[in-house]
């Protein structure tokens, strides 16, 4: 895939102690949906604003379709942005808002009207042409902002927490809509969010950021199944972390002793016996064994919590060394409810070797 955005050693240091973005290099392919994911203050918004031209980097460069745009003002970049609170002009109608960016593109009146129509049709709000932003609902304003940004057919569209102001139901619906819209228009989308679900659902590539740097980048599945650090494992999905010690290891697998037993894990680095490690386990990858059932890779403990969340149960299992981990159990039918485990009962959990994350060192994420 040809890169549309190439970011090279980009930094934004507000002062020697206050660092927004620190030495980031990133390549975004044409037509990709990329998400910058991280908690507030990780530099994701600063990075997005530098791509948009609203902040000047202190070091490094940004190339757009092969041209250096590092110091180009926003109005000289073929990039458009959907702002967090939409930034619709309150003194202009919906039509004027959407047509605003076409005024200087040398379009004829007719072409402006056609393109505004097409953009509004794309987001399904053509009938709102004459209304003003304050007469629209939050979701409608969001769509108008989207229409206003795509109407210029930018090479890249930036979205700054586009769904954060919407309520949960609408947000879920918009995730799908935004994704299909991106596929329809074929524009590269770069989105900033702190919501991992949003990132997983919509992105082709996720860039997880931590304190101004890239913690890990990859497809949603790569990040979910192979987190590079406890930080990523903790940020994407739910992970329980347990301290462990390597008993035996080679380059591809390791046997690790934990409080409630020993686990074999697939690893990509060579551990030697005695290494202190942190093991990460996802609740939905743990399988509660029935009585008498045997399996490789088993941890033993007692059930200390039972949390019901509709789709299933989340069990808190306390291991023999006092550490607790979570295990999810789906409840496929009402019959299964009679088998709800009771607090205090012994429990055995099995987990596949490729679902055991092993991180070097004792880490508290």
């Amino acid at each position: 895939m040809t890169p549309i955005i190439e970011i090279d050693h980009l930094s934004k240091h507000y002062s020697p102690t206050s660092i927004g973005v620190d030495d980031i290099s990133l390549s975004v392919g044409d037509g990709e949906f990329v998400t910058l994911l991280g908690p507030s203050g990780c530099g994701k918004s600063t990075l997005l604003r530098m791509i948009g031209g609203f902040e000047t980097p202190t070091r490094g460069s940004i190339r757009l379709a092969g041209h250096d745009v590092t110091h180009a003002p926003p109005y000289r970049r073929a990039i458009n942005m959907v702002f967090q609170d939409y930034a619709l002009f309150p003194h202009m109608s919906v039509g004027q808002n959407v047509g605003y960016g076409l005024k200087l593109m040398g379009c004829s009146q007719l072409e402006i009207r056609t393109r505004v129509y097409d953009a509004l049709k794309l987001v399904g709000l053509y009938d709102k042409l004459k209304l003003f932003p304050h007469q629209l609902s939050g979701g409608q304003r969001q769509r108008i902002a989207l229409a206003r940004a795509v109407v210029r057919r930018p090479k890249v569209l930036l979205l700054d927490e586009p769904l954060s102001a919407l309520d949960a139901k609408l947000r879920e619906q918009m995730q799908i809509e935004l994704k299909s819209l991106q596929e329809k228009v074929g524009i590269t989308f770069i989105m900033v969010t702190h919501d991992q679900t949003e990132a997983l659902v919509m992105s082709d590539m996720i860039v997880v950021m931590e304190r101004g740097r890239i913690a890990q980048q990859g497809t949603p599945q790569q990040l979910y199944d192979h987190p590079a650090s406890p930080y990523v494992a903790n940020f994407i999905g739910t992970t329980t972390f347990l301290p462990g010690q390597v008993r035996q290891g080679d380059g591809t697998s390791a046997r690790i002793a934990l409080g409630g037993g020993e686990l074999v894990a697939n690893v990509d680095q060579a551990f030697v016996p005695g290494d202190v490690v942190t093991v990460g386990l996802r609740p939905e990858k743990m399988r509660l064994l029935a009585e008498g059932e045997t399996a490789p890779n088993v941890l033993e403990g007692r059930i200390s919590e039972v949390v019901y969340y509709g789709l299933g149960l989340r069990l808190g299992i306390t291991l023999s060394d006092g550490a607790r981990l979570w295990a999810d159990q789906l409840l496929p039918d009402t019959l299964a409810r009679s088998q709800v485990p009771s607090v205090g009962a012994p429990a055995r959990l099995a987990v596949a070797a490729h679902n055991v994350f092993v991180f070097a060192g004792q880490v508290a994420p």
Partner: protein
Amino acid sequence: MTAMRRYLPGVLVLGIPLAWIVLFMLLPFGIIGTYSFWLKKYPTFVPAFQFGNYVTLFTDPQYALVLLRTAKISVLVCLASLLLAYPFAYYLVYRCRSAGLRTWLYMAVIAPLWISYLLRAYVWKTILGTQGVLNSFLIWAGIIDTPSSIFLYNQFSMVVTLTYIFIPFMVMPIYTALEKIPANLIEASADLGMGPWRTFWNVTLPMSLPGVAAGFTLTFCLSFGDFVAPFLVGGPDGSLIANVITTQFGSALNWPLGSALSVVMLVVVLGVVSMGDRAERRGTAGGV
């Protein structure tokens, strides 16, 4: 007793200001309104109900002239204030990077309001007069040989003085209006391809118009009713409507005519206020 206990707080909270407004605002207006229909009968005046005073105002050209002159001066003061205040407020909100400097500059505009109004008007006499600062400077610089009297006692000096006195009332609403414009609207405009000038023209200016309207209304009404500046720096052809009213109530001893003039002035001012109000509301109709 219980009724009194129940209504006493309300009466105290609302009653006193209400009584104040009725006693010191509505009642005097009523009296002025009544006087305006009375008849002047040498040496004083007698109660009557006739429109002679108003007829005089609209038929005798000297009153129309004063009204027009006052309106002209007020509009000029508004325009001069606007031309000075808008760039200044814009600089404070968008260009001034240091919060400390911003506060200082803002205070520099507001602080003169704490100084006696009379003193501020008087200052311009010493600046513009024949022995004044301006003349001394021009002679020192060799631009003129003899002190010039063209600076003082004319409409120019009046506009300068009134602009100086009332400019805070233009700066404050414009500053507030500019400050209220969300920064991301400016960014959105740049994002959609508009350079700084076009962004100003398409976004900043239209969104600050309510502030301009408020400033215009305030400055116009204050200038329209002023009688000190014309008195101090206005000169022979510089009487404004307020000076004529003073004369009617004073040396001319024609309270009915003075009252009629006051009523006309009140109507003009209320008209401007309601127009300004409408302009402000139209400007903010879009909401934020």
